[in-house]
């Protein structure tokens, strides 16, 4: 995976930059997923925060704590960052964040980790497979690819995205916009629809099998809950995708985010520094400790 070179020398890597919550969007029916749009407090931070799709950042609620969250906005979105955060009953920081209102100061450390291989994806067909709320950095990638300056660099784009129920789909308005475009093929599915749902029903692996994207000159990005990954990866392999052409993103309890604190390793690889983006081939070589 491409490593972003960190040009920090003796800068204090533990100190965040300052942002302010500009907008909060409740994403789902269960109301435990919110997207926070953060505006930079200082113009130079906005200029210096250069990130790529798939990277993450550590968000600080001052006086409470810090947690690692994938960047959901696209590098083409200027002047702000977006993070979609799930509130966990036991999560100190995610709870505090969900209780914040517009205007709250949030610290941001990043961008951290490696990124999706957009250079390798150039000139290729891109298959994006997402499940549940593990769709945030994939959304970043889709926004990036669909940007008018970038769309020409990629071939066919196919999206398979699913959630438990219609109310649990993220970025609903955006999904509708994508469905209306002719430069991305969308397959939005839910495990079980409701009375208003007119779209597809079925699990992501089954829908993917039905869609059967061509593996020739293609790269697949796959993010979702472990159970979805378990059944999706064999489908991709069956379709003919090599394990080096399947890309996923891992999570762990990343504290420092820069490979120092010794917490997020799987085998000898740090998720924060060597990842979070890995090929399926790389994941298969890791010990079973996820």
């Amino acid at each position, binding site marked *: 995976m491409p490593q972003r070179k960190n040009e920090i020398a003796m800068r*204090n890597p533990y100190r965040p930059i300052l942002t302010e919550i500009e907008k909060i969007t409740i994403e789902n029916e269960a109301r435990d997923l919110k997207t926070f749009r953060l505006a930079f407090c200082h113009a130079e931070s906005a200029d210096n925060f250069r990130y790529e799709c798939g990277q993450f950042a550590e968000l600080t609620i001052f006086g409470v704590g810090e*947690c690692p969250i994938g960047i959901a906005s696209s590098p083409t979105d200027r002047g702000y960052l977006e993070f979609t955060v799930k509130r966990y009953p036991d999560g100190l920081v995610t709870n505090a964040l969900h209780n914040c209102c517009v205007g709250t100061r949030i610290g941001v450390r990043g961008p951290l980790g490696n990124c999706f291989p957009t250079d390798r994806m150039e000139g290729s067909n891109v298959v994006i497979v997402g499940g549940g709320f593990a769709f945030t950095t994939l959304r970043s990638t889709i926004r990036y690819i669909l940007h008018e300056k970038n769309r020409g660099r990629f071939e066919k784009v196919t999206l398979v995205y699913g959630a438990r129920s219609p109310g649990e789909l993220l970025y609903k308005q955006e999904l509708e916009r994508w469905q209306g475009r002719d430069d991305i093929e969308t397959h939005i599915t839910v495990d079980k629809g409701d009375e208003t749902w007119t779209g597809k029903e079925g699990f992501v692996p089954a829908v993917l099998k039905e869609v059967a994207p061509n593996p020739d000159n293609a790269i697949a990005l796959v993010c979702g809950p472990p159970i979805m990954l378990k059944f999706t990866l064999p489908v991709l392999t069956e379709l003919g995708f090599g394990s080096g052409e399947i890309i996923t993103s891992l999570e762990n309890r990343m504290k420092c985010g820069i490979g120092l604190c*010794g917490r997020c390793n799987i*085998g000898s690889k740090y998720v924060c520094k060597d990842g979070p983006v890995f090929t399926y081939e790389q994941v298969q070589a890791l010990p079973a400790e996820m």
Partner: protein
Amino acid sequence: MADSKIAKDKIPELLKAVSADYELYAPTAEDGTIAFRRIDSARQATLDYRNTAVSAKELFLPRAEVVYEFDGEKFLDDALLDQKRVVFGMRPCDCRALALLDLNFDTEQIKDPFYVTRRQNTVVVALACNEPVSSCFCTAVGSGPYSDQGADVLMAEAADYLSARAITDKGKDFMKQYGKLFSADGSADWKKLAKEAEDKIKRKPEFGNVKASLDERFENDIWEDISQKCLGCGACSYICPTCYCFDLVSEKTAGRIRKVKTWDCCMFGLFTLHASGHNPRPVNSARLRQKLMHKFNYYRERYGVDGCVGCGRCVRKCPVNLDIREVIEQVAAAPNATTEE
């Protein structure tokens, strides 16, 4: 630079002079144990000691350290060490641990400015180890009682004097600064002294192929066996000179918010617990395996060297007598399910 020597009865004079110029840390007797403490001319260092109970890493990675302070509007200046310090009498194992910690905290890509500043501002004066104890195994992990890695000056105790040699430029400057207390004819037979000390290490566990044997035994019943008696108390990490894993904790004080970097330990279940409740290392055996793997497999893979200096503290202090030398040997001897099926 030729070796020089200093008579033992001149040591107090040397320490007095050093403490006038530097913050001076040396082994001191305290509550029946030996610990590195800041000393001044009034307080005598103890040089008659085997090793300190807790390693000297805390002088470079403090147990708790503020990494930033924020007043709600702006960050205060970083509290980087601005004093020049001398640590006198560190054993070669602890000095070598610094060379290993450098690999993690002082890299081309990322530098921990707090650690790096402490390293830069500190002269490490090592005291070679003439009397290794039964739990020492430095020679099994590429070190030795006369190793000079990580030290700026290495001293060795002979009859009634200490021989000294500068190892780094910082060490040369130190020797020049206090040259008048040393005489120039200090040439000691370092090789002979080192050999004598090494011969006193009776137990030489075979750690040569430990990485390979661990590679093949990630999934192995032996971890469950070995971890049966481990309490997961973390004492081994606390006193270890190379265990560096840390936590970052937020604190609120009057009108201020700060982030504190504290020692942490992979033996604790909370270490890897996700907010979702998922824990990739949910049981003690997985955590003990992580500790061994990090030191003897992952560190070697990342940096080409094991993350252990053989100081033997974990052997001496484990409340249930888990001996890392035996653990490594037991793992190496465990049937390997993947290759011997």
